[in-house]
């Protein structure tokens, strides 16, 4: 972040990856234009940044790369509004801005010495991908207990990070369950909604933290399920999404109760959410 928090850091688009067969989700790998900015940019999985395109505006997007992956940042962006549509039209070499890192993060310190269950649905999986890569990196893996990932998408073609998913499935220090709502001819994996699969897997609650992120309906059904599995409300986390502009708790639109999702969130525990108003 620069001393004026509204000024974007210039980045160069280094690589663009088409993630899904519907062609509306792309991952952008960005390289810092200025070395000083790169050294100053220190972040944790779960944080986000405002992607800034002069003439179009800004859009808050979770950071999909892991801090252990040096030299670049990655953002997986779904084409939805003005800014994200313009982003999708960019080519390699384009200059864009980012403001960040913004918000809190997945509770990394709290996860140390504990088992971790990561439940993701659809396109919201991006900061969880950051977290998984962080947790399983050589420098960090031994600080955490068992890691279980449950990830679902509507169809096989809508699964993000397909190559990484395949690589994760080969690891023996990570248990991963991938599911789709509807399979296709080529799909040999699991078929079923994320909450159903969570029930099947029924992760043990002892010394375990669940991090849940996905479309509202999935989150609404999954949060109570983990509570029923015996997880403490302090050990269930989710990440909220709101319309944002400033990203630093000034512009007044992303509050849930007295907390700003941009500054005090986006990650909240179920215990914290119980204290807030249900306006999200």
């Amino acid at each position, binding site marked *: 972040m620069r*001393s*004026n*928090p*509204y*000024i*974007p850091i*210039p980045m160069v688009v280094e690589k663009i990856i088409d993630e899904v067969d519907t062609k509306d989700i792309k991952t952008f790998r960005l390289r810092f234009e200025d070395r000083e900015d790169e050294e100053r940019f220190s972040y944790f999985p779960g944080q986000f940044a405002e992607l800034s*395109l*002069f*003439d*179009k*505006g*800004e*859009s808050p997007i979770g950071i999909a790369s892991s801090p252990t992956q040096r030299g670049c940042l990655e953002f997986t962006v779904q084409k*939805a*509004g003005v800014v*994200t549509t313009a982003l999708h039209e960019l080519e390699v070499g*384009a*200059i*864009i*801005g980012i403001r960040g890192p913004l918000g809190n993060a997945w509770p990394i310190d709290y996860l140390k010495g504990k088992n971790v269950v990561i439940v993701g649905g659809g396109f919201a999986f991006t900061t969880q991908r950051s977290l998984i890569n962080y947790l399983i990196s050589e420098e960090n893996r031994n600080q955490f207990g068992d890691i279980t990932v449950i990830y679902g998408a509507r169809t096989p073609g809508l699964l993000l990070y397909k190559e990484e998913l395949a690589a994760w499935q080969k690891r023996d220090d990570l248990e991963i369950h991938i599911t789709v709502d509807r399979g296709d001819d080529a799909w040999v994996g699991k078929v079923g909604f994320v909450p159903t699969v969570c029930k099947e897997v029924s992760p043990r609650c002892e010394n375990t933290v669940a991090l849940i992120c996905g479309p*509202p309906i999935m989150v609404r059904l999954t949060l109570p399920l983990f509570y029923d599995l015996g997880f403490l409300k302090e050990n269930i986390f989710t990440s909220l*999404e*709101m*319309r944002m*502009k*400033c990203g*630093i*708790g*000034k*512009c*007044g*639109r*992303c*509050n*849930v*109760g*007295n907390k700003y999702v941009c*500054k005090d969130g986006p990650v909240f525990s179920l215990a914290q959410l119980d204290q807030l*108003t*249900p*306006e*999200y």
Partner: protein
Amino acid sequence: MEKKLIPKGQLVHLVDKAKKHMGVFGPVKQEDYVVFRPLQEGENPLPSFGNARNAPKEFLFPPREVMMIYSQRGRDMVYGGEYIQENRALLFFVRPCDARSFVLLDMLFDQETYRDPYYVRRRAATIVITLACNKAPYKACFCTAVGGSPVSADGADIFLTDIGDAYLAEFITEKGRGLLEIWDELPAADDEAVKKKENIAKEAIDSLESKPPADKIKVFLDRNFEHPFWDTIHQRCLKCGTCTYLCPTCHCFDINDETKKTNGVRLRNWDSCMYPTFTQMASGHNPRPTQKERWRQRVMHKFKYYVDNFGAISCVGCGRCVILCPVNIDIRKIITEIAQL
């Protein structure tokens, strides 16, 4: 604290002197109302007025301000420099409610983490001269109900009281005392002037008739995010946003880009929680889908969330939203009704 007398006949002279060093802003008559705006050459602040229709907040946090510029480089639009105005400014004859709003806005814009450079630098370059209300200017005034007073010096660098043929001028802050270098001929205030001020202050506080119990409603707000009462306020609201645009403490804004051919500016514009698009997400989801949720947000933000986060109600009781709401939604009535629930 240094106390001086400003004979009323001297006022024109002092304003002119100040104009040589900084922009001077004050209340002037426009059509049938008063506005707070830059004083032109030879123009003076109105000696007698209720309050300006616009809150002087706009000189620290303008309705529309350029944040930075950008220009085209090859195929891209790239950053071209920040744009921060920090010209010295003197706000003359700010009413105590409005001066107090600066203190409330400081809490948000001048936080330890994420200081807002646009507001903070302007604020540092601005001197506030508050003029006490000898009598509540409007029936809709309710400053004493929200922690203020018609003679509050909160937010003032210099505090003036009209004591008849002169103003008693109290130079409160270092910034205020700096003006004594320009105004070097002011006579010191005598005990009689100070005594007069004290009597005026007492009468001024007594003159406030409207006292909605704003400090009593947080207990209700803490527990009743869902309550049938929230269905009652918004019914006739036109979503015009007048209340938020006139409000001295509302601070919500939008950020927009405006491009002309190969150059452009990134702007900050006031926005309003009364507008449907304020929280509308690109996915189509809107966490505040109707005017009911927007009104609840307005009340909660001012009388609960701001108190939770900063320890102060975010309303100064100026009465602007009460007087100028086209459908007569009255925040005092809302407060009073909540207190009875």
